[in-house]
């Protein structure tokens, strides 16, 4: 089977757009979290959000009027354009039936549901314009990416909520290593939504002041938005065209808690099995991992369970493996989160620097894990795990490595 590498990355995030700006700010501990601006949160029990500000879709959506696309699609097309440019690939010379798009999301285009409801509240069903609901099904997002760049290969959305980015990169990896395609644009996208926001607010899950993953005083997560897209291709092709290789995809694992729709299994059963499957799929062992990009949302329960899972699987080695959550800076970008974190992992492998967990003051009682508190660290990781967990008990871990 073919080896698969990452040769291009594009992102739109609450701390910045494009690979270089994102990485510079991420390793400097930037903050993308602030009061919600895209809708009025008066009457909500929470007010913090991680929104993408000053995003101009017309720079990126060039084949159609940008307003013909929902915000999720706009963010995805922008990330895809930057990823393709970053990879330096010349699409004009390629067989477009051999290039596909694989994406993940939590909510797809939820703003279409919001527009639908606003319209029928204002004027009844008759007043709902015909173009709103057809833009809702989440697979329109990768379809818009395919249309923008004229890509004719497999094109799908894997809407496995907040673990979706890892699922999508994993699928893209499978497609290339089996030879079904020669290149995949893989990643995730989600747009800021009052639906998601009101749900998390009602659950009391949103942090009041800041996002503090793994900190003893953590009080919640912060809903966000964004997109990351990665260019995946066979190692031989990347070498042949002289591409910059950021990282190699070694394998991935997925599992289901089958326990509760929103609460993680208390002993981290599914999380452990996803990490173990990712290592087995990659032909690696727990002894090989030297950085973990945590799911680390900042809620009291999720972070505790993830720490238990890592402590259980890696046993006495666990405290020696640096593990950080970039959600402390960019919030929880939902279906885009693990794709953005896969970019962070790739850049950690490429540059040798791992991003910090910001806002960290003290660990949970009895916790001995290394959360890379408040400062990026030069550690030259060789093999990393990217964790992602979701509603529905869906878990996915992705294993990436520096190319040897």
């Amino acid at each position, binding site marked *: *089977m073919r080896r698969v590498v990452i040769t291009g990355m594009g992102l739109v995030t609450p701390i910045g757009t494009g690979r270089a700006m994102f990485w510079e700010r991420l390793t400097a501990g930037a903050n993308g979290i602030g009061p919600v601006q895209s809708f009025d949160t008066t*009457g*909500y*029990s929470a007010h913090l959000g991680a929104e993408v500000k000053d995003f101009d879709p017309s720079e990126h959506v060039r084949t159609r009027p940008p307003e013909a696309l929902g915000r999720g699609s706009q963010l995805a097309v922008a990330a895809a354009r930057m990823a393709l440019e970053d990879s330096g690939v010349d699409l004009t010379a390629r067989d477009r*039936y051999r290039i*596909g798009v694989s994406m993940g999301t*939590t*909510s*797809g285009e939820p703003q279409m*549901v*919001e527009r639908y*409801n606003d319209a029928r*509240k204002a004027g009844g*069903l008759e007043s709902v*314009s*015909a*173009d709103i*609901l*057809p833009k*809702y*099904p*989440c*697979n*329109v997002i990768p*379809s818009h990416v*395919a*249309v923008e760049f004229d*890509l*004719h*290969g*497999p*094109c*799908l959305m894997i*809407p*496995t*909520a907040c673990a979706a980015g890892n*699922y999508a990169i994993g699928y893209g990896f499978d497609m290339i290593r*089996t030879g*079904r395609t020669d290149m995949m644009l893989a990643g995730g996208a989600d747009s800021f939504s*009052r*639906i*998601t926001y*009101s*749900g998390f607010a*009602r*659950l009391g899950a949103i942090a009041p002041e800041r996002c503090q993953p793994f900190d003893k005083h953590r009080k919640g997560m912060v809903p966000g938005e964004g997109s990351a897209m990665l260019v995946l291709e066979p190692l031989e092709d990347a070498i042949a065209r002289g591409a910059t290789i950021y990282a190699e995809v070694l394998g991935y*694992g*997925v*599992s*289901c808690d*089958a*326990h*509760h*729709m929103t609460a993680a299994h208390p002993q981290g059963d599914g999380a452990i*099995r996803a990490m173990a*499957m990712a290592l087995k799929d990659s032909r690696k062992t727990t002894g090989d991992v030297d950085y973990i990009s945590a799911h680390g949302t900042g809620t009291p329960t999720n972070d505790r369970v993830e720490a238990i899972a890592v402590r259980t699987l890696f046993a006495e080695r666990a405290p020696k493996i640096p593990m950080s959550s970039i959600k402390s800076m960019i919030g929880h970008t939902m279906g885009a989160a693990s794709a953005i974190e896969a970019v962070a992992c790739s850049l950690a492998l490429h540059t040798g620097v791992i991003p910090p967990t910001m806002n960290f003051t003290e660990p949970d009682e009895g916790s001995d894990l290394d959360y890379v508190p408040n400062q990026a660290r030069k550690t030259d990781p060789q093999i990393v795990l990217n964790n992602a967990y979701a*509603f*529905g*008990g*869906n878990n996915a871990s992705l294993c990436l490595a520096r190319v040897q």
Partner: protein
Amino acid sequence: MSDRVVVTGAGVIASIGAGVEEFERNLFAGCSGVGPSPLMGGNAVAAEVRNFNPQPWLGNKGIRVLDRSARLLSVAAHMALGSTGLSQQEGDGDPDLGLVCGTMFGSVHSITSFDWSGITEGPNYVNPMEFPNTVINSPSGQAAIKHKLRGVNSTISAGLVSGLYAIHYAAEFLRFGRATALMAGGVEELCEESFLSFAKVGVISQRGCPQPFGPDRDGTVLGEGSALWMMETAAGAEARGAKAQLEVCGFGATQDAHDVTAFRVRGEGATSAIRQALRSAGIEPDAIGGIIAGASGSRAGDEMEVHALRNVFGDRLGRIPVCAPKSAYGEAMGASGALGALTAGLALAKGFVPPTAGYHANNAGLMLSSQPQALNKEYALVNCFGCDGNNAALVLKGLN
């Protein structure tokens, strides 16, 4: 990666039947589930699962919180598990048993209702118990809890072709050894939001009668339901003594990259998807003994499928029996591919392609019939094409 993937069981609930036996009986009798839709109300016509009550299959426990999609999927999963002796009634459930579910609109009705309560009653009055149903993967997450499915759990959305993608996705996972048994297929519920999505752009049949490939067809009729196969590696099925009924041997998928709301009528992408499916099965077009078409009565979509079939099969097309089952169970969106695959499997097992319900005529030279037609070869082709540019095709082999 070399192991073959086989089908060892199935579950289905659709307008024409609950359970494989009833579905098969009505399908081969040429019955149609298209009719007045109590769910949509008014004069709406659809292939609805009428008087749906999950209780006979799922009991009462934990049903209340499941939305219609989660209930349909959980019922199909209950049947598929029962058909293969893999039900997880005791213990913690199997970490190597999973579920891959295709869907187009997912839980759109739950999402819309949740948002509606927020904007009409205020953000603090949304029901937190309903929030889990707003994620698109909620049906497969709920079915996993209901049936203790701890292995691979994935939701696939590729519009109207989601069901075929889910089957392909499961087959890849089994070949990679990430699971020993996976249920795969799709689910879709009829609801106001999906219905309006099609109705407002004028693609629903005004006569309320889908006539796939018919010369005076005037549009699609929506359907709903869920179909799942139990899929295993051939070696795994043999080891536990399960009978392999079918082999999933070829898949192809393309995207027209043309427009997300219109078919590419000349069918280049659809042609390529069918050719890929044949090539990955390692067979020539000659080996196909029957075609389960994706046609739903759409003027442009059905025309595109004829072009694609003509491109692949040439003059031999007129001698291959074809069934267009969406006149029976409707355009069931994310479940359509799974229902089509199930139909093809039943055809291979029986040695007959089912009739096309309500068939009168076609002017494309296709071998369609209102009666069952003999299927004399080992392989069948399943097509699925969407107006968002997604095309998929699946090749199956009968193992009688």
